[in-house]
């Protein structure tokens, strides 16, 4: 797996996922890119983090979760003015793409996730961070 090309602060990633297996796999992949990882078990917890003033560079968000669904979570996060954070919707439900994108997600990843697509996403976020520092 490619290593990250970090020049500066690590990518801050938020994983919003209620299934432990998925959360573990995603966090393992993101650790290989030296991401700083925060976990939320549902959308409500994720929104709370933003209300507390936390900032993230990228969010990986599942669709079907208790308390608050993925698309609803994304709508609320965008409504808080978080327009710059890259949001990746993830679901085993292929029909979820429309719901995620309408809610404000940038990308949809079907489950089971192809692990090698995460690297380029993180690299894109790193490049964006590096460009904004120039």
């Amino acid at each position, binding site marked *: 797996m490619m290593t990250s090309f970090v020049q500066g602060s690590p990518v801050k990633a938020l994983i919003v996922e209620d299934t432990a297996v*998925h959360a573990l*796999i995603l966090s393992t*992949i993101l650790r290989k890119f030296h991401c700083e990882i925060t976990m939320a078990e549902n959308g409500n917890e994720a929104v709370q983090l933003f209300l507390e003033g936390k900032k993230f560079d990228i969010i990986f968000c599942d669709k079907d979760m208790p308390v608050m669904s993925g698309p609803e979570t994304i709508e609320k996060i965008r409504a808080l003015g978080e327009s710059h954070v890259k949001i990746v919707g993830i679901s085993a439900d292929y029909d979820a793409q429309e719901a995620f994108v309408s809610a404000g997600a940038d990308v949809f990843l079907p*489950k089971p996730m192809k*692990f090698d697509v995460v690297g380029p996403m993180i690299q894109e976020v790193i490049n964006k961070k590096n460009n904004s520092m120039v």
Partner: protein
Amino acid sequence: MAATMKLGTLGHAASMLSTGLLDEQFQKLLLLQDGSDPNFVAETITLFCEDGERTIGELTKQLDKRCVNFDEVAAFVHKLEGGSATVGAQRVKNTCIQFLEFCKEKSRDGCLKTLDTLRVVFYDVSGKFKAMLQLEQQQAEATK
């Protein structure tokens, strides 16, 4: 295949792959294990087994109710489908897909029959996973 896994364990995994119990997704999982995450595969399949057992317990309760809420049943099956697809537990995943069809048809009988199949298939793969982890642990202790 992951450099940190012992040959015996890899042989066990290869046998599960060749019998169709697992698919290529499991091989991708093995590749994520390295020196920085030496217990990744063990943790992942342990979580899968624990989640799966809990889900089967919930499905049994749900289908035992007088009035079955098929949406709720489907939600549990969907979760197990997702988990099994992610770890490469192909037969569990395929059984979940059949189960979801019966949920759509709101067929209690169909759901109950498929739950029986799911139990067999799940405990087959989780038993083999547990045996694989035990072997891994024994081999790790033998090389200390």
